[in-house]
């Protein structure tokens, strides 16, 4: 839920575990970078709306009225009303908690499963590692949305069904990353030091290996909330999520389909909400990637080379 604050904390955490002040520098550069700043603001707004959205809503999101299909800006309805006369602003605000909350919860579940599998594979190694990684390869080799759709179809339509479906297809990527992290951390001198003073396997994993894994995974998972939101709303749009009248964003889009040609705002309002939220997470993710990947910063610009060449051979 507190997506923004988590990211900030973790930004500092990465620095602390890797090499001192990198985290604070990362944060400063993120705030300086214009796109990352916009992303940071949107993600923070998402966190606030997911927590406080429902109490900000001016109307009951489920209340059916006779004021059907009011345009945005109509008296008392800032974003208009839908085909049943329900206030769209109130529905979007209530939906913020459902949509963003389920995306955040899905991110937490997915990273938890991935972390358990990845740690087990990386730490136990041997046959267990081989079998688990093969499974990861296969799950990654199946188109995610197709499998998620089939799994979600096993249950009655609900957000929980969608989340379960997402966990079954999404954990694999995390498991692979976590395994790699575990393998590299267990070779670190401080792990050897802990072992040499008699720490047991369990203690080594919990106290020395996991802390290094958790910060990275939390950053990844936070940034993927946007992608998860896309898939959750997509499946919900296809009718696999909570049944009407739940004000979930994807479901609202599906509700609006019938009225779309005459009253497009019914579809545009929830669509904009989804797009903006996803954009925010993507912008922030992009900013972090740019700041953390220094490779791209040192590529010479072709323009400069051309000018240098022109200067040498006039």
């Amino acid at each position, binding site marked *: 839920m507190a997506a923004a604050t988590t990211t900030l904390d973790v930004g500092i955490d990465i620095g602390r575990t890797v090499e001192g002040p990198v985290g604070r520098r990362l944060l400063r550069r993120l705030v300086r970078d214009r796109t990352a700043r916009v992303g940071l603001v949107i993600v923070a707004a998402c966190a606030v709306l997911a927590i406080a959205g429902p109490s900000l809503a001016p109307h009951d999101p489920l209340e059916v009225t006779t004021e059907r299909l009011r345009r945005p800006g109509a008296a008392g309805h800032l974003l208009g009303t839908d085909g049943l006369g329900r206030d769209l602003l109130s529905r979007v605000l209530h939906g913020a908690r459902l949509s963003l909350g389920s995306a955040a919860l899905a991110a937490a579940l997915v990273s938890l499963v991935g972390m358990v599998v990845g740690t087990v594979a990386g730490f136990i190694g041997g046959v267990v590692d081989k079998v688990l990684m*093969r499974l990861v*390869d296969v799950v990654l080799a*199946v*188109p995610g*949305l197709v499998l998620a759709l*089939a799994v979600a*179809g096993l249950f009655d339509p609900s957000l929980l069904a969608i989340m379960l479906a997402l966990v079954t297809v999404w954990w694999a990527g995390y498991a692979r990353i976590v395994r790699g992290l575990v393998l590299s951390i267990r070779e670190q001198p401080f792990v050897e030091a802990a072992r040499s003073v008699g720490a047991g396997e369990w203690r080594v994993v919990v106290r020395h290996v996991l802390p290094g894994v958790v910060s990275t995974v939390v950053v990844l998972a936070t940034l993927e909330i946007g992608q998860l939101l896309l898939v959750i709303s997509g499946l919900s749009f*296809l009718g696999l999520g909570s049944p009407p009248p739940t004000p979930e964003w994807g479901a609202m889009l599906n509700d609006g389909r019938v009225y779309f040609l005459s009253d497009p705002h019914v579809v545009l309002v929830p669509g904009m909400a989804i797009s903006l939220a996803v954009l925010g997470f993507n912008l922030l993710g992009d900013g972090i990637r740019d700041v953390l990947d220094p490779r791209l910063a040192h590529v010479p610009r072709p323009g400069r080379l051309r000018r240098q060449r022109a200067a040498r051979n006039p």
Partner: protein
Amino acid sequence: MAWLLVSLVTLSMITFGLGVLAPGDPAEVVLEHRLNQPPPKEQVDAQRRLMGLDRPLPAQYLRWLSKAAQGDLGNSWLRGLRVSDALRERIPRTAALAAVAAAISVLIGVPVGMLAAVRRNSLADHVCRIAALVGASVPSYFTAYVLILVFAVGFRAFPVFGFGSVANLVLPAVTLALGPAAVLARLTRSTVLEVLGEDYIRTARAKGARQSTVLAAHALRNSLIPILTVIGLSLGHLLGGSLIVEYVFAWPGMGELAISAIQARDYPLIQGFVLFAGAVYVVVNFSVDLGYAWLDPRIRVGGRR
């Protein structure tokens, strides 16, 4: 090769497992559909034996697999037709949609990414970067409606829904292409930027090669491997995306079939779709791996693992 086989077998196990976990007794569903009333107990038991449902799961799986390998995916519970026939009718339509979308995404994504890389930090680069981000953030079911609003309702350039003419294909294909195009543009930009910093580019420029030669013969060619990977991977995006896009535009392809099968809980049909779509995806990714060796002689498939 062994890897391809393992993937396909595991995929078939997952698909079979979906059918086992599906709610409802298949024998009962089939009979109820045939009789139009809840069937008596003895008849259900007889039907279970007939369908082999009384045997242990491994035996059921082997039987299902050997039939599936011969193209027999069973009968749809509700439509009363063979799953393989239902799929065969739909596959060309989805393939046409996906092929056109893939072509559009390459035609947009690669040039835009090249332009952004060559004119780094110019206005064009910023516009491309923002467009690519927006393209990756806006869900296809929303893009679809925006495109309908602008081109079908606003300009009346294309029909909104339906199937039959080439004009019907344009809006769904563009909708489907925008996501992969955004990914391709970003990847092409970063790959070309990286390649432009290589020594051989400097050598080429030092030889006096023209900018166009450097870009086409050196930068683009050496960027092709990651770009090819993403084109291969975007097939998964296209398969998944076709579910939503076909639903929105009422394009009668595999995705639309799968959605209606899900809504009706028609599990043999769903299984057939998952198995087919998954197999296509696995095989295409394998071919992409083979494509590496062709593009870059340093890589040999056998040496990868």
